[in-house]
Structures are given as C-alpha cells and as structure tokens.
C-alpha cells in the first residue's frame, strides 16, 4: 500500500531577529491510510510548524519551506498553487487547533461555520449544508443539535467548541486529520472525551490522523506510530509500543519518565516522578552541527557536541538520532 502522505527531507526556515533559523531540519515521515501518527515533544520544537507546512499555512513572510517535499498522493504540496491548496484544505486534509476558545469566528453561528465548509467543498445547497451541520453536531455528541446549531461560539464551553471544530474538520470526511494539541486548553475530564471522539470518528471516516501532543498518555492510547521531535529535529521514531517500552534516545526516556506509571500497574509502588531540566535551545542555535540535546543530556560527550548524530536503526522501524543510543538502553 502506498503512503498517503510522504514528507521527504523537509526543511522549514523562520525569519527571526537573529537571522534565519531552521525550525524544521531534515524531517522525513510516511503516513498510511487510516493510521494514527503522533508527534511528541516540548513546546517550541517545531511540531506545529510541520502541521502548518503540510496545510500550506506557514505565516506569510516569516516562515517558508526551504527544502524537501511534502507529497500527498504523489502531489508535492510544498510547490502547489494556493488555489490547489484551497481545494485540498478542509476537504482532503483538515486541521484542529489548540485553542478552541479563539479558533471559531465569534460573529457567525456555529451552524454557518460548519455549513460553510460543506458548501465550499461538496457544493451542497444552503439548506442541505445546514441539515448536514445538524447531523455533524449530533455525531460529535453535542446534545440537542437542532437548537444548538444556531448558537454562537461564546454560548458554548471550551469542550463544546472543540467538538464543533472536530465537526468542521471531519465534515468532508478528509483523508488526513491533523490535530494540533487538541486538548491542551481543556479540562482533564473533557480531554479523554475529545480523544475518544476523534478516534471513533476517525475510524468511521477512515481518516488518517496526525496527532500533535506532549501528552505521552494520549500517544500510548491513540497512535500506532510516533515521532519524537527535539529542537526541529527528529530525535526518535518508531512504533509506539516499541518506543515507549524501550526508548533509545535520552530525550525520549526523559519524556517517558515525566509521565507517572504510564505502563505500570496502579497498585505498584509509584516511582519518583522525573522531570527534564532546562529548556529547548534558542532558535538561533537550531542550525548547529551538534546534538542540540547535548546541553541537557547527562550522557553527552565531545562527539555529541561536535557533530550532528544521524539516525541509527534499532529494528522494527525504530530509529534514534543519538550517538550513544546503542549504549544507554
């Protein structure tokens, strides 16, 4: 089966005060139909930039694709015209954002905001789009959709707004759904519901999902494959089960240790909760030829500080970009 989405050696550059920085540096990935792929990493590591690049929504004049290809069904989105991208966006590839509170337009009813995308891509009449909007609200489990459809965003809670966003994103049964930290801004109890909803509806429509998150629990629950990003580079990638059970990159290990009893039984004694000290290096250092994680890594040696590590293959698709990955399992 051919890959639905294939990203090859993607490089995204961002203009900053200190010059041009590569916020995404040599990233490759493959996404197959119906599969869920997860992007993991701290904020500022370039996860959202990758998503925006796939959508062709990198901020004007600030960011741009400087190299590599984004192949969707063989078509390179990085060089596609804006008109072509407009046909794909919201139809074949759609996206859910982090901030449900501000992602919906406050001056239009939610029904209009759902119906709009149906009219745009499926050439539905106003009336047909509106009744489909009600169906979609029902599908995302908003009670009493018949009357809520004419509500405005400010009349809904954050969780409900994110459900509306999901309804908009899935309206045209896209081949790929990108969810950029869809639950970060929500209450813990609501988070689980949103993930359930995404998984169920994604399965129904056969959409592949790219889930961007820093929540390792959600990754374990939702995804088949994962990519751990650090400072714009792929630190480790592979099947979720394998990476979580035997992480090779010290950064992946750190992230997993941040989560209490991820794989442990609840009855077991809980291990000390670790946290990763320090912060992601500043943007201007992103292009350096070294392991960018070295300054925070207790295993770092001179090689790590002088040369960028390539990806080492550990079998079953697991790849870790760490000079010492072989020793520190």
């Amino acid at each position, binding site marked *: 089966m051919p890959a639905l989405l294939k990203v090859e050696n993607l490089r995204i550059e961002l203009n900053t005060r200190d010059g041009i920085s590569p916020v995404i540096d040599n990233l490759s990935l493959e996404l197959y139909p119906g599969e869920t792929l997860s992007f993991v990493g701290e904020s500022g590591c370039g996860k959202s930039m990758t998503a925006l690049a796939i*959508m062709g*929504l990198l901020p004007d004049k600030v960011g741009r694709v400087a190299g590599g290809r984004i192949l969707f069904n063989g078509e390179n989105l990085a060089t596609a015209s*804006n008109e072509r*991208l*407009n*046909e*794909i*966006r*919201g*139809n074949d590839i*759609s*996206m859910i*954002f982090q*901030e449900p509170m*501000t*992602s*919906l*337009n*406050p*001056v*239009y*009813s939610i029904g209009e905001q759902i119906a*709009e*995308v149906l009219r*745009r*891509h499926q050439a539905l009449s106003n009336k047909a789009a509106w009744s489909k909007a009600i169906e979609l609200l029902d599908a995302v489990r908003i009670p009493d959709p018949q009357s809520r459809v004419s509500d*405005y965003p*400010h*009349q809904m809670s954050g969780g409900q707004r994110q459900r509306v*966003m999901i309804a*908009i994103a899935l309206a045209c049964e896209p081949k790929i759904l990108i969810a950029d930290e869809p639950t970060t801004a929500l209450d813990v109890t609501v988070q689980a519901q949103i993930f359930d909803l995404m998984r169920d509806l994604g399965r129904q429509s056969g959409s592949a999902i790219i889930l961007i998150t820093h929540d390792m629990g959600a990754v374990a629950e939702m995804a088949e494959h994962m990519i751990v990003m650090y400072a714009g580079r792929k630190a480790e990638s592979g099947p979720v089960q394998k990476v979580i059970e035997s992480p090779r990159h010290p950064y992946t290990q750190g992230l997993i240790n941040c989560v209490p009893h991820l794989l442990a039984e609840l009855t077991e004694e809980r291990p000390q909760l670790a946290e990763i000290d320090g912060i992601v290096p500043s943007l201007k250092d992103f292009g350096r030829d070294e392991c960018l994680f070295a300054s925070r890594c207790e295993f770092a040696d001179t090689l790590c500080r002088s040369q960028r590590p390539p990806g080492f293959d550990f079998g079953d698709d697991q790849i870790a970009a760490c000079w010492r990955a072989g020793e520190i399992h």
Partner: protein
Amino acid sequence: MAILRATATRVVYAVILLLAVLVLNFTMMHMAPGDVADTIAQSMGGADAEIMEQIRKDYGLDQPFPVQLGTYIGKVVHFDLGYSFFYNQPVVKLILERLPATLLLVISAQLIAIILGVVLGVISARNPNGLASHFVTGLALFGYAAPVFWTGILFLILFSLKLGWFPTSGMRDVTTTGGWFAEALDIAHHAVLPVFTLCSIYLALYSRTCRSSMLEVLGSDYVRTAKAKGLSASQVVYKHALKNAVSPVITLAGLQLSAVISGAVLVETVFSWPGLGTLAFQSIIARDTPTILGILFFSALVVIVGNLLTDLALRIVDPRVRSKQ
C-alpha cells in the same frame, strides 16, 4: 424579551441624560450675568425699574430656583425651549428649520468617513508596506493636526476660488429650477466641500483604527481556521475578518459623534452652511441665550439618539453584544 428590556433600559438612561443636560443648561443660564428681563429691555431700547420688575414677574424670575427649573423642564417637555428675541421666533421653530442642514452635513460626513475609512483600513492592512498604508499614516497625522476650519478654507481657496468646481457658500442656489431632482443635485453640489472638510478628520481616525483592528484580526486563530477550511483569500478577508474588524470602528464613530457636531459648527461657519452651527455662531454674537442653550440641548439629543443607533449597529454586527445584557 431580553432585547426589549435592554432597549428600554437604554431609552430610560437616555432620558435621564437629557434631563441632566436641561439642568445644566438652566443652571448656566441662571448663573450667567444678566437675565431675560435685561435682554427684553435691551431689545426694547431700554426700560425703567418698574417695567423690569413686571417683566421678571411675568417670566417667573422672582420664583425660587427649583420652581424656575421645574417650570423650564415642564416647558421643554411641551417642546417649548423659549423665545428668541433676536430672531423674533420660538427657539424650537428656529432650530427645527436649521437642524436638517446640520444633520445632512454630519450624517454624510460620518457615513463617508466610516465607509472610506474601512476600505482604506482593509487595503492597508492587507499590504502593510503598500501605498495605501503610507497614505493612511500621513492622513492620520494630517487629520489630527490640521484645524478643520483651516482645512475648509484651503479647500475653498483651491476648489472654489482657483478651480471654480464648487460654490463658495450656502446650501442651495436660489436660481435653480427644474424639480426636486435638480434641487437635490444642487444641494449635493454645495455639500461636497463642507462634507469632505468635516470628513477629513474622521476619515483619518477611522482608517487608522480599521487598519490596526484588521491587522489584529488577520492574525487571529479564527482567521487561520477559515484558511484551513480552504476558503479563498477574499472570503477570508471580507467574510471572516471584516465583520470582526468593523466593531471598533463603529464604537469609535459613536464616541466621536459629539466631536463631529463640534467640527460641523466650524465647517458651517466657513462655508456659510445654514445649519445649527451658523445659528450658534450668529446667536452668540447677538448674545441670544435661549437659542444658544436650545442648540446645546438639541445637539445633545442628536448625540444621544446617535449613540442608541450605534448600539443597535453593534448588536447587529456582534452577537456577543446581543447576549451581554
């Protein structure tokens, strides 16, 4: 129901504001040196003490302050704002004759300023380094710093005296014949310079406000959502962004209404436009107190009604305002 109640509250509040204007008016009249008796005596060419006493009694000036105030408010409720001894007419009649000219000037200047301001604001926000953007910046500086009567005189010199495109003064040409359409055209011809003079200040203000709110809206999350839906650039800007970006402009236009009327006073004087401003100017020279106070009252009334309309416009544009009450 909620909308009805909210509207009722607003109307009650507007009435209270109007009453306050009346109290202020009367207090100022009371505190000012000289009274109605003096004015009448003056217009009669002098009067002795006895007659003055009689006049004061006739006009109730010997009554205590609250009683006089009550009488004054009672009269205003019955559309009686006093009598102008200078024009020999009731003040209300005098004002109602002049009000349409001022309203024409103020409303057209406001509407043109808002519409052009939004257009300029949107164009310059879409291209922050373009020609329109520099124009808006320059216009904003000019609009703030140029005295409006000076702008008016400059327009007059250039477009009327030098180029002869527009008449120098007045609102209509008495020699015009040919039915209502020719007359309307004639008034419009006379109105161009006054309207654009008055417009110049507010066009600057509104276009700058629209540009900054548009820039903010274009960077918002919901505009990104609209783009992610695959909508075309013009749909994103004119459907999703614009409706959000005009709210600050409408709010500002409402706040500026009383300033626009102030500007109209100066512009009317420059172009001899037969409105309330010219009337105010003339009655101040003539020391015609009832007329001056009547004009102040009516202009406050115009502002209050304008604010109610602004509120209504905001309600139509922004559902959040609708459900706030």
